[in-house]
């Protein structure tokens, strides 16, 4: 693995010219990656605070975090977190999550292969006339559903991958977007196997 430097005393101040470890001197910054991680936890008081505190306390990123009980009988909740960082940080995040006492399982869906993810948005667009018609037309193209409407507004429900939801929201901005509520990402691995 590592090459062998010749044994010898480097006098203090004279660095050993040995070939450095490939890890410690990799040129430039390591790439930032994005991962979607599923975490199965006991649904108990404070468990979300533990997860969030871990991210804030150790300076990790949270791009999206969703949580809901998925197994009421066994009091299990599932947290889906989208995070980004260098590969080393991402491994740390998973190890630190797994170390939390109420955590049952940590699965890196991005690394585990294919997964599907969905983000749901409720988008309120206010306006009249041509803009209103255009909003409805675009909603139709994006297969967004009208879940509430008045003479001067629509509430669209849009659910798809986050990037497509983003795109829809961008298009709604000039057409009178007044309010937005999103769930964040929920995700599940492809294939027959469960978490």
């Amino acid at each position: 693995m590592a090459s062998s430097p010749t044994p010898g005393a480097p006098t203090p101040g004279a660095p050993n010219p040995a070939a450095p470890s490939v890890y410690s001197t990799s040129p430039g910054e390591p790439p930032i990656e994005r991962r979607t991680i599923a975490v199965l936890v006991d649904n108990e008081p404070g468990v979300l605070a533990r997860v969030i505190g871990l991210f804030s306390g150790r300076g990790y990123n949270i791009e999206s975090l969703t949580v809901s009980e998925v197994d009421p009988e066994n009091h299990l909740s599932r947290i889906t977190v989208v995070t980004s960082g260098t590969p080393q940080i991402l491994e740390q995040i998973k190890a630190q999550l797994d170390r939390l006492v109420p955590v049952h399982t940590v699965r890196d869906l991005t690394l585990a292969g294919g997964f599907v993810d969905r983000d749901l948005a409720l988008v309120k667009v206010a306006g009249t006339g041509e803009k209103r018609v255009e909003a409805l037309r675009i909603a139709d193209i994006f297969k967004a559903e009208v879940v509430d409407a008045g003479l001067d507004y629509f509430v669209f429900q849009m659910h798809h991958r986050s990037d497509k939801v983003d795109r829809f929201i961008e298009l709604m901005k000039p057409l009178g977007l007044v309010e937005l509520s999103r769930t964040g990402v929920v995700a599940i691995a492809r294939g027959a196997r469960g978490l």
Partner: protein
Amino acid sequence: MTAKTEEAPAAATQDPKSELPNGAELLIKALVEQGVEVVFGYPGGAVLPIYDALFQQNALRHILVRHEQAAVHAAEGYARSTGKVGVVLVTSGPGATNAVTGLTDALMDSIPVVCLTGQVPTHLIGNDAFQEADTTGITRPCTKHNYLVKAVADLPRTLHEAFYVAASGRPGPVVVDLPKDVLQAKGPYLSKEKVHHRSYRPQTEPEPGAVEQAIELLANAKRPVIYSGGGVINAGPAACEALGQLVRATGAPITNTLMGLGAYPGTDRQFLGMLGMHGTYEANLAMYNADVMLCVGARFDDRVTGRLSDFSPGSTKIHIDIDPSSINKNVMVDLPVIGDVGRVLAAMNARWRERDLATDAKALDAWWQQIEQWRARDCLAFVQDGDVIKPQHAIRRLYELTRERDLYVTTEVGQHQMWAAQYFKFDSPNRWMTSGGLGTMGYGLPAALGVQIAHPESLVIDIAGEASILMNIQELSTLAQYRLPVKTFIVNNQWMGMVRQWQELLHGKRYSESYSDSLPDFVKLADAFGAKGIRVTKASELDEAIREMIETPGPVIFDCCVAQDENCFPMIPSGAAHYEMLLGPNDHAAKPISEEGMVLV
């Protein structure tokens, strides 16, 4: 969190026909079943039911400290010197917040502690009641885990879980927050074998493949080094014994972290001393030049590695740890081995013997010749001349005059701590208690108190500085109450020595606020607390005074007045590499401390 709808416990309290024990009695029953003998604590309103139950039993001994922080440090000292879980009992609000420093200390040093905190009754939680604090919220980041017990039915199970979590895997502090109404409500007991944790199962058995790879790497090494830490001590005496076997089988040099001292006999020839910022020349250069490094139960702390990019650059690194989050946290390793250190080492030793492996004797011989050259620099040498006592001399003489005894040593934090780590040689584990991760001034005296409770016949010395000792000086009263013969050896240079040293080396000798002004007369202070006070100012009188201290049956405060300007060497300046050690006052940093280095603590 504050589910005020659950009023079940209150109802249970009023049930007159119930002959079940109340929460406080259940608590004591659970503690006794867990094998607890001693609780360090301080009473208050919210925990009065527990104190009432304590009063009516004889199985548990309660040690009344004088400050809740000290209760936790005492429990840490007790835990570290016995290998058992330390138990703390404090009240709500200020009782709990005062314990936070101790809990953080225990978390950083992976010490198993269960801290029971009182809480206001459940119906008052969230109302800003008197002595209410969000204890689980405050202690969430400074504990391994914490609980708020909302119903008496959950109390025994929670207690047993708390002990399981505190002691298994990588140990740590666990808080159990106990509302007063829960302590008074009646409920059934649940014994510990009926409690199984739902999710927490740390991996203790290593992957056999990783064990094979690890011993092959060691067998093929030409310049191996073993670097072991507090994890080996935590894994128990058998793990320390297994470490010794591996070191002897491989013939490799071994260095210990501050937390790991005593895991391998300090007086053995294969031991290179402590490594890191104030580690020995030979230990740090062996780390720098090694071709295979075996890290056992240590975590590549910044005090150990120095500049990361120059940390043991040519070595293939093996890391044994029970905590997967320690792997690749600071330093990328080539071979992680997850598991209990004791089991991993035992497996390595077994396979080493079965496969009849041996290291390359010729290469190892050359490596040792090199190491002996480094060792010959005698990096811990100092000159004691004249009558002014050098602090290093004081600590070395303390070691030499006490080494034959049944000795336990605690320290405070600072220069004296590093000198103690350098000059004391520990031949067995659990004899050395110091605040490594958090660096808590005020740790040593209460920790010594806890050690002395566990080992009443042993010689327990707190090596202190005159600044640190004042941070928990109130515990002298506890020593007096329980007649604990702890010896407090104050290396008194009238400065916050390590702060002064950094100001001298890094901040242009601007000694901002680091002078210990208005110190008490420690001899009179000793007298006030019923201890013996001894002051020494002359080197010629040092030995006799130390002997007097040892022979005194009760507590002693030893005011050892030493030279004021001594610095702790060797020293790797912050942000520098292992080969950039300063060996003494005449050594200057090879280059000025970098901007980057100045930022580091």
